[in-house]
């Protein structure tokens, strides 16, 4: 069983929902990423989503764009991120998913990337600009090496696409909660529960909700209708606002555990 599938089985047994925490690898630098990841894991995150910085992230709002830029300035590359995962794997067992634009992977070499990522201990990949239509060979290689190809669904996805995308997804489905780019919003969009419900009818794998989740309250509402939440910009913002490591770590611990607590209570 893969670490991701295992993780969801445990969560189910504990009757709790998943918290996926997103951070941009290398923001502010890779050394910090390692300690940030330790804090987040210890504070209750179930899965880590490591963002690979790209010069032109089309699906990201200002917070993650700026974060990617800081990471690139500190010299982060995909190769270094894979090496970091390998290092993290010496001490950590939580599932690690890489989120990246397609071009860095394409330039790295798709097969080589999958091989290196798998041997470093990467469990899944999210590539927003690689829909199932373009992912054929990549998905096949990923499957072969035991890496879950996590696809996205959106409020705009009609039923046929929900079925098609669900069929191609492994690990979990990333449901984009709103029609827009990443970034915290004050409210969840209407109809979220219905849409997630319709996706769950098309698949047996977990459906997680991401984009726009700002804190415990929204996480609670989103988790109530899904299998868990993905929180990104809110965490990245904390990292940006707290350059002092000690302060940053305590804020992160506080925030992550508050979100985890919010989605763990009885629904």
């Amino acid at each position, binding site marked *: 069983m893969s670490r991701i599938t295992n993780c969801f089985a445990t969560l189910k047994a504990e009757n709790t929902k998943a918290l996926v925490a997103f951070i941009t690898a290398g923001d502010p630098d890779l050394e910090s990423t390692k300690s940030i990841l330790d804090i987040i894991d210890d504070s209750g995150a179930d899965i880590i989503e490591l963002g690979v910085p*790209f*010069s*032109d992230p*089309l*699906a*990201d*709002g200002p917070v993650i*764009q700026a974060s990617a830029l800081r990471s*690139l300035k500190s010299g982060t*590359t*995909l*190769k270094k991120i894979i090496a970091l995962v390998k290092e993290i794997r010496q001490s950590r067992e939580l599932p690690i998913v890489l989120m990246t*634009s*397609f*071009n*860095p*992977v*394409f*330039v*790295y070499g798709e097969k080589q990337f999958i091989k290196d990522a798998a041997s470093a201990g990467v469990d899944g990949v999210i590539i*927003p*600009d*690689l*829909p199932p*239509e*373009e992912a054929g060979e990549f998905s096949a290689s990923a499957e072969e090496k035991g890496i879950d190809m996590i*696809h*996205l*669904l*959106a*409020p*705009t*996805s*009609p039923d046929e*696409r929900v079925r098609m*995308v669900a069929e191609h997804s492994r690990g979990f489905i990333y449901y*984009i909660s709103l*029609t*827009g*780019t990443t970034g915290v919003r004050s409210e969840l969009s209407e109809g979220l529960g219905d849409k997630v419900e319709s996706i769950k009818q098309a698949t047996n794998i977990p459906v997680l909700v991401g984009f726009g989740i700002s804190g415990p309250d929204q996480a609670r509402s989103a988790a109530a209708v899904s299998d868990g939440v993905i929180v990104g910009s809110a965490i990245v913002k904390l990292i940006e606002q707290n350059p002092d490591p000690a302060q940053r770590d305590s804020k992160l611990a506080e925030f992550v555990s508050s979100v985890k607590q919010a989605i763990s209570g009885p629904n």
Partner: protein
Amino acid sequence: MDDKTKDMNLPDVRGHFGQFGGKYVIETLMPALEELEKLYNEARVDPKFQSDLKYYLKEYVGRPTPLYYAERLTKHLGGAKIYLKREDLNHTGAHKINNTIGSALLTLRMGKKRVIAETGAGQHGVATATAAALFGLKCDVFMGEEDIKRQSLNVFRMKLLGARVIPVSAGTRTLKDATSEAIREWITTVETTHYIIGSVVGPHPYPMIVRDFQRIIGDEASEQIMEVEKRMPDVCVACVGGGSNAMGLFFPFVENKSVKLVGIEAAGLGIETGKHGATLSHGSTGVLHGMMSYLLHDDDGQVQEAHSISAGLDYPGVGCEHSYLKTSGRAQYENITDEEALEGFKLLSSFEGIIPALESSHAIAHVAKMAPKMKKDEIIMVCLSGRGDKDVNQVADRMEADS
């Protein structure tokens, strides 16, 4: 004959030109692309749509544009005969309006009330704002802050036409970032807004749609040259940023392999300086803005800055069909520096009384190099994609600084 016909039938059903093209976008946009493709496939065979398009191109845009024999320039260069396809004479002063009229009609057909666009030199922004005014659509144009500075005339024109110009301060503050920001806006408003892309770039079906709306350049030109010269040209030349005027000129000739197709990219400050926009000559395959194509990027897949004196060629990507034509060997791609383009700008102004856009000046500069090496009975057809009024201030400042 089989393989020739195949090229004209590209892209394939998945939107691919060989390995290039495709739909590399986030799920949120996939349904809109599918709808656009379906709607366009219906429109292209709908006689009413075609007659509306024809009407506006003739009565509003002023088509057909002349194919003008540049006699003094030909004599001055002393080689092949040079014909100019005068896209600069279109309403709004460039070829961009061929696409925006068609795309605005598609917008009406899909029942959307708002369009967005990206712009570099401002020509596509002006053409979109114009079509939006003509058809009563709301229009927002994304433009890099750097380009807003160097193309102030077009910024004013867009505002006058009722469009909002939204400055983009991210990254290089030029066309690449304006395109990224327009795509982000489209991700957010896709249910009510149509994105009118200005070139043969982006996810399928955009490269196909924009090419089809621009091929009127080549269709008219091939008829016109047959009328005057009773034969096809030997060479077609056009500048390539994203490459829509070039694709428009080239496409009808793709099957006719006796016609050489030459696209001219920006060599900027010189290829050796790394500050250029010569994507096809010096880039490699990559994925940006929804398609697989040639791209200027580093060993880690990070997109690099392009550079050109002309905002319209200042783009690190290029149309995916050009990438296909390059790798298949059907078209060649050369490049021209900022300095050479300025010479082309002055050359056409002084010998023909036509001030070309800095983008088109790249094509003129290349013609000035190649024509003298060709025989007098050979024919070059060059796309004069736009007029240079928008560039006059910039060139004047530069000439003043140089003197």
